[in-house]
Structures are given as structure tokens and as C-alpha cells.
């Protein structure tokens, strides 16, 4: 039995049956899945969730599927790392990294939304799934289509990192490179969804797809021992995940599974694509679209469809937003790797770099629990690290050469002897 009630317009509240619908006919606002929370009371409990599988499907009662999952059997339930070494470095008391660089099978948070969307696509009777993507979504759609036995068409900007292209193509989708940026790809996909009878997961299945992102927030709460971090720093691209982590926290509060500690949400963007942080910092309700130019390609969306709601949730929750430069993003990637052993993509570097800036600005206090959302893996974007490391000259396989190398390193580390006057 499912607890799903209807699709409800985010603004005017009109309700619709569960169908592939994205907007309300009356005010064109997005529609969102509604659940019967009263019926869940006493049935959806900490115990019922803990008894579920070690995947995002442990939260199935709070997801919009009717039957059994069709994919994502090993997606989600990623590590929540208590980042003590990084916390010490940043001078904060309690810091967590929610690490979706370890998400399966495509190493980004997209495996959550796609698990739900592909399952829903099958329930609706689609045989082909697709997406408009900055890379991670394409990778995930291709993987889950392979798992579920569907055809897939994935549309990406022409200049994506090679790692993402190869990893995606290995699953056998039809990959289409589009001349243009993500926003061009997205516009085209809206037209493709209209013309072809496919489930474009982030276009015509969007209300179901986005619900999968809630599982990221559910896991943070459960893995913190059924409590919420006071401050959550989230990367912002199209605007899916921040409002959905917020919704996850609110649903757990409503069901009495966690205490309401008034969690605050913070948005992280790259300087080269920061329409949301700009609007938040200027106190504006609406953002101005931008043409992205940043190494953080997975979050290079200059015209974020859900940007308005991101701004709203940041404001309502008492959070804030900022953006980071490309060099700050790279430094943060290295800092996270060196202190916590997590190698993230530039989007993750952006989130940590912005968290650091918000802490230094005094927007996030140092003595309250902070969660930084790392949503993708660095192995897919190694081009971003070009020029970061010195060339390593090979040495002969002889112990003498190794000794000489170690001695040379020691000498380089020692301070130069003071010059003596003859």
C-alpha cells in the first residue's frame, strides 16, 4: 500500500491524480507529490525504517511509487562521515560530510532521483527514459536504464568531462552531445519530451524524480541518530536537492521522528554560475539568469527552474548563500581529500569552499552541528585537477635510487644552512 495522495500545485494548491504531469493548469506552478501523513502516523516509525533495506528504499513509504522498486537496490545509504580532522582545521566543533561520492552505481546523488524516476517510468508504462544532464544525471540514467532493461537517450552539453562521457557510454545509452550549455540542452529536452513519447526523467517525470532527493536528507537525519544538523550546506544547480532536503527534514519533524531544531539551509555555488547566491545576498526574491563559466560543470546551470524555491527555503530557514572561485573550489577538493580521504568533484569542492566562507563570515556559527553535502565523485572530473601536482619522474627499480630520492626529499625539507662568512 502506498501513502501517495495526489499531485498538488505548489502555489495555488489545486490537486491532480498521479500522472505524468509537471505543472498546474491553473497557475502553471510546479506540482509536487502529496502524501497522507495522518495514515503514516504509528506505521512509518524509526523502527519500521530501520527494518528496511540498506538502500534509499528504506524510505519507500515516503516515496511516490506504488509497487516494488525496479532499480536502485544498492543506491543510497551512503556514509555520513564525522569529519573531525577537517572540523579541527576549520575551527568548528561538529562537522559532518554526507558522502554521495560513494553512491552506487554512478557515484553521485543522482542515483537517488533516478531510482525513483525509472521505477515510476515503468509504472507509467514507458519503455524509454532520457534526461537533460550536466553529466552525472546522464551517467545515472544510463546505468539505471541498463539495470531495469529500458532504452535510454541522454542529452548533454558538448564539452563535458571525458570521464563522465566514457562512464555513461559504457552502459549503452544513446548519448547525444548538444552544441550549447546545459540551459540549451534543457530547453531542447522540454521540446523532445513533448514530441517523443519518452520519460525524460527531469522534465516530464520531474515531480516523481525530485522526491528521490529527499532520501539524502532522510539519511542525514537517521545517521545522525535521528536528529537534524543545525546547518546544512547544499550545492545549488537547477534547484532540486536543497528544497528536497528541506522537505525531508520537515516530513521527519511532522511524523515525530526527529525534533524540530529549526534547521537552516545554505546554498553553495561557483562564482562563474551564481544566480541564486547573488539573489540571496542582494535580498531579492527572483534571480537573474546567467551564462555559466566555471570548472564546476555539474552545477553550471545559469537558469535554474527551481531557483525561486531555493531562495525561498534559504530565507525561510534562516540560512544564507555564497559562491566560490575556481581556485577556492580546487583548494577545497584537496583539503577534503587530505583531511577526510574523500575525493569529490568540483561541485563538492564548491560546497566545502562555500561552507568555509560562510563559517568565516560568521553566517554559520562554529559551535553548532554542520553538515556539508558532497554529491559527486572526483574520479569523473580529473581534468579539473590538471596542473595541481608536480610531474613525478620515474626512478630505476633499485633500492639505492629510492634511498637517494628519500635523501633528496629530506634535504629539500630541511632549512638551508646559514651562510658562513669566510
Amino acid at each position: 500500500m502506498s501513502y501517495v495522495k495526489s499531485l498538488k500545485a505548489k502555489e495555488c494548491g489545486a490537486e491532480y491524480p498521479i500522472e505524468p504531469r509537471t505543472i498546474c493548469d491553473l497557475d502553471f506552478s510546479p506540482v509536487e507529490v502529496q502524501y497522507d501523513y495522518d495514515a503514516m502516523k504509528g506505521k512509518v516509525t524509526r523502527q519500521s525504517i530501520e527494518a528496511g533495506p540498506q538502500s534509499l528504499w528504506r524510505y519507500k513509504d515516503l516515496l511516490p511509487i506504488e509497487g516494488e522498486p525496479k532499480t536502485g537496490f544498492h543506491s543510497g545509504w551512503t556514509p555520513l562521515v564525522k569529519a573531525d580532522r577537517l572540523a579541527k582545521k576549520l575551527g568548528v566543533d561538529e562537522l559532518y560530510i554526507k558522502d554521495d561520492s560513494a553512491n552506487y552505481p554512478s557515484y553521485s546523488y543522482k542515483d537517488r532521483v533516478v531510482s525513483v524516476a525509472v521505477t515510476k517510468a515503468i509504472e507509467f508504462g514507458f519503455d524509454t527514459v532520457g534526461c537533460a544532464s550536466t553529466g552525472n544525471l546522464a551517467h545515472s540514467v544510463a546505468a539505471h536504464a541498463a539495470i531495469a532493461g529500458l532504452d535510454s537517450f541522454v542529452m548533454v552539453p558538448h564539452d563535458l568531462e571525458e570521464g563522465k562521457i566514457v562512464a555513461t557510454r559504457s552502459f549503452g545509452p544513446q548519448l547525444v552531445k548538444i552544441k550549447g550549455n546545459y540551459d540549451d540542452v534543457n530547453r531542447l529536452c522540454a521540446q523532445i519530451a513533448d514530441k517523443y513519447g519518452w520519460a525524460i526523467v527531469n522534465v516530464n517525470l520531474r515531480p516523481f524524480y525530485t522526491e528521490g532527493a529527499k532520501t539524502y536528507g532522510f539519511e542525514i537525519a537517521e545517521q545522525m541518530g535521528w536528529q537534524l544538523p543545525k546547518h546544512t550546506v547544499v550545492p545549488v544547480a537547477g534547484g532540486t536537492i536543497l528544497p528536497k532536503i528541506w522537505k525531508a527534514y520537515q516530513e521527519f519533524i511532522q511524523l515525530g521522528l526527529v525534533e524540530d531544531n529549526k534547521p537552516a539551509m545554505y546554498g553553495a555555488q561557483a562564482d562563474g554560475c551564481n544566480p541564486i547566491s547573488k539573489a540571496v545576498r542582494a535580498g531579492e526574491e527572483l534571480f537573474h539568469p546567467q551564462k555559466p563559466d566555471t570548472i564546476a560543470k555539474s552545477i553550471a546551470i545559469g537558469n535554474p527552474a527551481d531557483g525561486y524555491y531555493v531562495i525561498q527555503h534559504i530565507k525561510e530557514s534562516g540560512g544564507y548563500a555564497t559562491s566560490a572561485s575556481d581556485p577556492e573550489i580546487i583548494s577545497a577538493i584537496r583539503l577534503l581529500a587530505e583531511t577526510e580521504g574523500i575525493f569529490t568533484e568540483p561541485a563538492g569542492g564548491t560546497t566545502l569552499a562555500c561552507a568555509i566562507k560562510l563559517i568565516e563570515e560568521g553566517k554559520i556559527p562554529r559551535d553548532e552541528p554542520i553538515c556539508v553535502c558532497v554529491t559527486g565523485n572526483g574520479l569523473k572530473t580529473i581534468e579539473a585537477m590538471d596542473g595541481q601536482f608536480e610531474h613525478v619522474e620515474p626512478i630505476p627499480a633499485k633500492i639505492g635510487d629510492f634511498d637517494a630520492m628519500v635523501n633528496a626529499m629530506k634535504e629539500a625539507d630541511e632549512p638551508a644552512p646559514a651562510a658562513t662568512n669566510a
Partner: protein
Amino acid sequence: MPESITVTIPAALRPQVEGSESVTAEGDTIGGVLDALKAQYPSFGDKLFPNGGEQMNRSINVYVNEEDIRFLENMDTKVTARDQVDIILAIAGG
């Protein structure tokens, strides 16, 4: 002299224009074309510009030759019959 401009309509909005995939409206700017569209389909017009305001519904984006009008001259963007004008829903997440 305003020309007759063809505007494509996304599937989700076609019920607003009697199911048509595209409509024609006269105007020499996007603002003019949308005004003409409002006159033809008053109920659609009220939703495109809620509360009788100047601000277009934020769920709707308008493109001229594949470019968002917010990167052009917005409502003052000039159009002729040779231009491709598309109404696209703002839905995204990559």
C-alpha cells in the same frame, strides 16, 4: 508594420490554446506579440501575466531563435516573421 509571428506552445500549455501546437499573433516586439496573444486567449493571458501585472509567470520562459529573452531585450526584443519564437516551461535539474 507589425508582422504575424508564430509562437510554439509546449504540450502542457496546449489546452490553453484549444490544443494548438503553435499560435500566430501580430507584433514587432515580444511584448507586442504576447499582448496580441492575451487578446486572443484572455484566460491564457491572465495566467501568463498573473494578477494583471507586467511580470511574466516565472514558470514560463520565452525564447527567440533559441535564446532566452532575458539575455536579449526582454519584452522589448524585436521580432519579425523570420524569427523562431518558443514558449518553454521552466523545468530543470541536471
